[in-house]
Structure formats: C-alpha cells, structure tokens
C-alpha cells in the first residue's frame, strides 16, 4: 500500500515518540507496525527526517547501534511531542469526517 501524501511526517514522529531511533530502524518499524502493508521509500524518508529536523520537531545525534555500529539517531524534541499529539488529533478528525461522508454517501 502506498502512503497517503502528507502522512509520512506524522508516522515518523509517532515512531520516534517511543524513543530515539536511526533512519533504517524507523523504516523497519513502520513496515512492522503496518504488518508490511506500508512500504516507505527510503528515498523519501531521509528527506522527511531532515525536514522535520529543520522544523525543530526532531534532534539528531551520532550514536551506536546494539551491534556497536555508528549511526545517526533521531529523537523527538518537546516541540515535536506537541506536534505528534496535534497531528494525531487532526488525523482522527479527518478520518471521522471522511467516514461520515462515506457512510452517508
């Protein structure tokens, strides 16, 4: 299933809400949580991470993976946490409205 436009940022923020992760981990996590239904193009995930960092929703730092390899990790900022809640609420409202239209239609 292709991701809907504009939802990648929200998913990344949600994944990072559980703790700091590197890019590869984030993409695997999305795949796992969606039961392999959502395939995130790596070519679009990294620009999205850099965009979120520029907006101040995430911070990046170099760290070590469980296997001792050096990688770039991302974590949510305070501003990012607020953004996750805000986007979750917006998404629920959006889905509810679409549901109403679909049911009524």
């Amino acid at each position, binding site marked *: 299933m292709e991701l809907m436009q504009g939802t990648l940022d929200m998913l990344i923020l949600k994944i990072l809400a559980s703790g700091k992760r590197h890019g590869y981990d984030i993409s695997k996590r999305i795949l796992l949580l969606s039961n392999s239904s959502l395939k995130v193009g790596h070519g679009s995930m*990294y620009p999205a991470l850099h965009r979120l960092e520029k907006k101040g929703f995430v911070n990046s730092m170099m760290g070590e993976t469980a296997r001792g390899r050096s990688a770039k990790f991302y974590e949510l900022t305070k501003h990012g946490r607020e953004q996750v809640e805000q986007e979750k609420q917006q998404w629920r409202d959006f889905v509810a409205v679409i549901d109403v239209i679909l049911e009524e239609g």
Partner: protein
Amino acid sequence: MKIVRKVSNRLKALFLNGKAESELDDEMQFHLEMEIEKNLERGMSPFEARRSARVSFGGMEQAKEDCRDAWGIRFLQDSYRNLRFGLRLCSRYLNTSILAVVVLSMGIGIASMMYTMSSKLLDTSSGADLDDRQLYIQWELGTAQGEPFSSHDFKVLRSEVDSLEDLAGIQNSGFWFSLPLKKDEGKQYKGVKVTANFFELVNAKPILGNSFSDQDAQSYEAREIVISDLVWADFFDRDKAVLEAEVMLNGDQCKIAGVMPTGFAFPRDQQIWMATDWREFDGKPRASAPKIGVTGKLKPGLGLDQARAELETIASNLAVAYPETNEERTRVRLTPYREQFVDDDAKAILYLGLFGSLLVLTFLSTNVFQIIMGRTAIRSHELAVRRSLGAKRSHVIWQVVVDGLALSGMGAIFGIGFAALGLRVISDQLSVFEMPWLHDFQLTPGVFLFAIGAALFAGIGSSIIPAWRASRMNSFSILKDDSRSSSSIYIGWLSKAMITFQVLFSSILLFLSVMLLWPSLFMDSLEMPYDKNTVLTAGMQLGADPQFEEPRDVERLYPRLKQKLMATPGVRAVALGSGKFGIMGDLRGIEIEGEEEDKGSSMRISQISTATPDFLDVYGLKPLSGRMINAFDSEESLTVCVVNSHFVDTHCKNVDPIGLRLKIEQGSNGYSEWITIVGVIPSLMPNLPGTKEEIDRLFSQILLPFAQHPLWNPTILLSAQNADNDRYRLAIRESVKELAPLVRFQGPILTIGEGLSFVSRMIDTISLGGKFLGGAILVISIIGLYSIIAFTTNQRRKEFGIRIAVGSNAWGVMKSVMRPWALTIGSGLILGFISVLSLLVGLHSFSVSNGGMEEDLRGYTPIFLTVAAIVGLATLIAMIIPARRAAKINPMDIIRAE
C-alpha cells in the same frame, strides 16, 4: 525564537557543510549496509544482496539532493558552487571570458562615470549642510528665472521679515589673490561677498580660525576674509600660521580670518568669502545698487505660504515707496535652496545621464548576452548531464545566471578602476576652471552601489534568457546529438534580433559620440575678424565707488584712465564698451522708421551695445560707410547710432541705412525716442556655421554712443600686441585703483582669445568624452558581433570542410559565412538611421518650439555618413576574421575528426 533557531540552523548547515555532507553520506551508507546484511541473512549472494539493497533504496543521489533541499541552504550552496564553477569556466573559456569582462568593465565604467558626473553636477550644496528650511529668495516676475534683489531691497526685507530666522546676502565676485610682496604672482579665484551671518545661516564652520562678526562687515579697512582649503593649499601649503596673514585681494590689503574645510565651496564654486553690508551703495540711486542672491531659513513650524505672504506685504510697501524701480516687483519666489539650481534643465541632464547609463548598460548586456549564449551552447552537454542526474530547471537557470554574475562581478571590479581613471582624466582636463563642482569627481559610496547595481543588471539581464533556454533543452536530444541540439538554443530569431539591436544601439551611441566631437571641431575652426589675442577686456562696477553718483560720472574717470593706460608701453588703443568682451550686447526689439509695426515684428530684434568713439580703433577696423560715433555725439546732440553689416543685411536690404531712424524697446516703458543711423561698421562677430540669413539675424548689432547711453558697468577694452601679458592686466588694475579705489572688477580680466579658449577647453573635454565613448562602443560592438559570428562559424566547420573538399574556393566560403549576417546587420543599420533621424527631428522641433533657430537637417549628412562608415567597418572586421578562419579550414582535419 523560531527565527533565531532557523537562522542558526542555516548558518550551522552552511558553515558545517562539509560535516553535514559527510554525515549524509554515512547515513545513506549505513542504511544500505543494514539492508545488505539483512539480505545476506536471508541467504542472498553478496552480489544479489547488494543489488537488491540498491534497488530497494531507489535513487540515492536524488535522495541526497532532496535532503540538501530540506536544509534550506540549497540556494546559497548552489550559488557558491556555481560561482566556483563559473570561475573555473572563465579559465576554461578564457577568450570569451576576457571578451565579456572587457565589454562589462567598459560598460560599467562608462555608466558609473555618467552617474558620478550627473550626480556631482546636480549637488548644489557645495559642502554646506542644508535642510529643507533653507530657502533661496528672488523676485517673481513670471519669467523662467527669478530676479535677484537689489542690495537696497535686501536690507529692507532683512530688517522687517519675521517668518525667517535671518536673511543672508550673496554677491558673486572675482578676486585676484596675491601676497603683499608678490603682487604679480597672484591667482584669480571665484569668490563671494556675503553678509556676516552667512556661515551661521548655512551651518558651516571653518576648520581653522573664525567666520565673520558684524564688525567685519562694517570695517572697510584691512578687511577679513575666509578662504577655502584650495587657496590655503595653493598659497600657504596648509600652514596653520595662515591666520591673520596679510594678503592682497584685488590690490586691497586683507586679513585671513578662517579656512573652510575641504569641499566647502558654497554657494556654488567659491573659494574666497568676504564680509560686506553693501553700505557703499547706501544713499545712491536705487538703480545703481548691485543685485544679490538672498538665502534665508524658515522658522520652525512656519510654512512657505506664510513666509511668502509676509515678504510680499513688505514688497508691496516698497513698490509704493519706490515705484520707479519696484512697481513690478510685488511678488517673491521662494525655492528650497537644494532645488534652486536643480531646475528643469538640470533634471533633464540628470535624466539624460541616467538614460544614457541605461542605454550603455542595455547595449553591453546585449553583447554579453551573445557571449553567454555561446558559452551556454558549448556547455549544453554538461547541463544536459546535470538535468539527467536530477537537477531541477531552477538549478540550471541559476547555474547559468551565476556564470553571468561571475563575469559581471569581475567587470564591475575593472569597471570601477576604469571609471576612476576616466574621471581622473576628465578632472585634470577641467581643473583649469577652478570650479570644484565641475571637476572634483570622486568615487563615493553611492557610485560603488551604482556599479554593483549595474553589474547585477548586466549580469542577470545578459544571462537570464540563455539560462531560461538552457533549462528548456531536451537533455535526451542533447546527449544523443550534441552539436545540432546545442546550436539550436543559440541560433534563432532571438540571436538575430539581438544582433539587429546591437547594430541599432551602436549607430545611435556612435552618432551621439560623433556629435560630441563636432563642437570641438567647430571651436578649432572659429575665427574672429581681428586678432583675438590683442584685445584685453575688464568689466567694471562703478556703483561700488561713492564718487560716481550716476553712470554719466564715468566721463570724469575715462579720459584720465585712457591717458594712464595709453602711457603703458605697448598699448595701442583703449575704449569703453558694454557686454561680454565688449562685443556681445543685449538682445532687444527694434522699430524702423517707415516699417509697418506688425510686419515681421518677430524679425525686428538686434543686439544693443554701447561704446566710446575709439571703440573700432581697439579692433584695428574702420567704418564701412558713414561715420563712427564721435566726440560730438553728446547728451545734448541728436541721438545717433551706428549699425554693423549684419544689421544692414537683415533690416535694411536694398536701402541705404545712413539717415534711417529706429527705436529700441525699453522694457515695460515702450520704445525709446528716434535714433538716427550715422554709420555702418564691420562685423566683430565670429564666423559661425549656418546660412548667411541666420548669421545676419543672430549678429545684427546697434552701437550707441556711451555719452548718450552711459552704463554703471562698462567694459574696458585695451589693445596691445600681446595683450595676454600680465603687465597689461596689472596696468588696468593699478590705474583703476589709483583713479577710483573703490571700483570693483566683474570677473577675471581676459583677452577675447582667453575667453574663447576657456569655452574651448570645456568643449574639448566634452569632445574627449565623445572620443572615449565612441572608442568604447566600437570595441564593444566588434567584440559582440565577433563572438556570435565566430561561434556560428565554428558550428559549421564540418560543412565548410566538406565544401572546401569538393572544390569551393576561399572567397566562396567567406561569402557563405558573411551572407546570413549581412541582412541582419543591414536591418540594424537602417533602423539605427531611422532612430537617429527621429531623434534629430524631435530635438529640432523641441528647439524651434522653444525659440531656437530653424536648422537645415541636411547639415547632419556628414555625421550620418561617418557613423555609417564606422559601423560598416566595425561589422566588416567582426565578420572577416571568422570568415578568413573558415576559409583556411583543412578538410583532412574535419574528415579525421569524423
């Protein structure tokens, strides 16, 4: 806070760019390796694992580009990278880079010079700190120029006005400055007599010493003067002991009270200031009072209307009290001082200067456009590769524009140097005039900003179209068939239109530059009907001396003055005359007896001068018929005049003028009494070009006897073999000082030849500018045309090689190179001719509607032909070099390359 974070992120990204790039690489590599490991764990071969990971990731370079976009410094990074790339390109295509930089530096240099000179000429503050409350006040008589106040009127206004903080009077004056023991080694300076409050009113303070006190204006013995930095440097080598030094000013002893800072030359280009209150004219007839400029400062909170109302009330009272001089002077004109000398003409000069700069910039942009178009076409393969690798259209556009900006940046650096050099040459040329506003051209911060603006205009203007066209190229076609597709972005209607415009602009600009040469050629060919270096002229101001109660009193001075001057060895004749150099008179309406009043009334004008009987002796001439004015033509005798040959040819065709009577217009008082013509004298005027009718009308002259029409400001005319020798000037100064110590001179004492060379020098400078401009335009034109013709010829190398191989001769190849351009260049020449003709007709109609003379435009034919020949030759040179190169192609080289 958000903005601070954004800026800090961008700066961090910009300055830590190397680190960010390396982190980005590591991040992508890490992702790829993790995916490979996962694939290996799944049992794929290493090769398959790597291939699958790469396919799954997608375009890594594109992902990196998108990440860089997300950093928000893409534009700056690209610009920096493109700039470095642009500079590398310059060294790679050295020939076109040098051509472009030469064109740009010339264009930016010329435009910066035009801007510097126009802005300098329009700066009327001359170093004074003026604000909008500083006003210039004159009589309003409904004419284009207002009329200055007389010293009598000024004093009344100054004592009664309340809406202005104070009024200062200004009277221009020429000063012969010398040291007491070296009277002959002096120098003539422009100076000004002012009221004691002058410096205070224009917010100016001396850098050394003091300005004037009220006592200075009242003391007429050992007067105190303030000098400019220029005089201080000339005579005292900027020694601080200058204060209280005794100096001679027009032969009078003075003391130096202060020295003004560098650049201060207020009100216009003055170097010496002397305090006065014009008391010597108190009690004298009002008509004899000197005219003085008046400046005042509006009180805070008051408007121009309030000040005008108050001044006009005072003026109305003056008109009642002195109807003979003030009846028509009841309205005043108030102008902010800063605008006073920036009138419509000056504004027109500014707009013309700026328009000229824009024209030059547009012209050079057209040339650089051709060069950049050629470079872009050559680079089309490389741009296509970049596009294929994911660069957006905007990136390609910016890359080409930065190339243009790199060239124009270098052009601006050399252009400023070029402008500095050009301004130095012009300043040196004009420095003899001692007018800082005319020659002290400096590169101010404003000029640097202008040059930067010009570079941006030229850089962007010349590269935006090539950039836009390059961004629309089909990368696939370019990579498939480089040469054909790349030339397609270049050769087309746009390039041909540009060539046409280039020839058009060259023709117009060259025509203007040749026009600037014309006055110099005219001055070189100017001849007077006598030796112009044998007549010395000195304008006197009799009203300054109380012994002269009316102009007629000069008759008491003149015989003794003549006797003293004639006693000077070498002096051949002395006379009194009027007007500039004693020959140019006032232009007035006349009425001739027997003529109908309204018949051709617009034709009935003549120059009116006044002279003593010995006037013609000064020029070594005799009357042509009748007699000259003589000693019997007194106040009591019949009023008579003599006329010159131009007058006869204009107003007395087929009639003997001797005995005819005429009347002369006397301002608002109608016409004079009948005046009888008693003689005809030869013309004293120069041989101007034009039809005989035009010249006769322009130089028709009536000479009145001084005894019947005495003047307050007569001109002494002295004839000697080498009249420019300083001893004759000294003789005039010493003699006048001995007989009438308080009489002042108006302006410097010059021979007619010196006066003309003063004008000639100025015209030569304009002519130098014309040569400069014309030369630069020629070089720019040849470079621009050459670059496009050379490029297209190079693109057709294969075709020419084959032609030569199948037997075409050199001339056939050359014709084939030149023929396609002949029509384009020909169209440009025809359009240029039409534009110049329209410009001439427009200017001529404007001039005639403003009272100028009708002129035969066929007189411009030599200029047209000269310009057409020059442009034709330039285009021929631009075509012939690539054509000859094409004719020398070795077919074997072409076949081998294939």
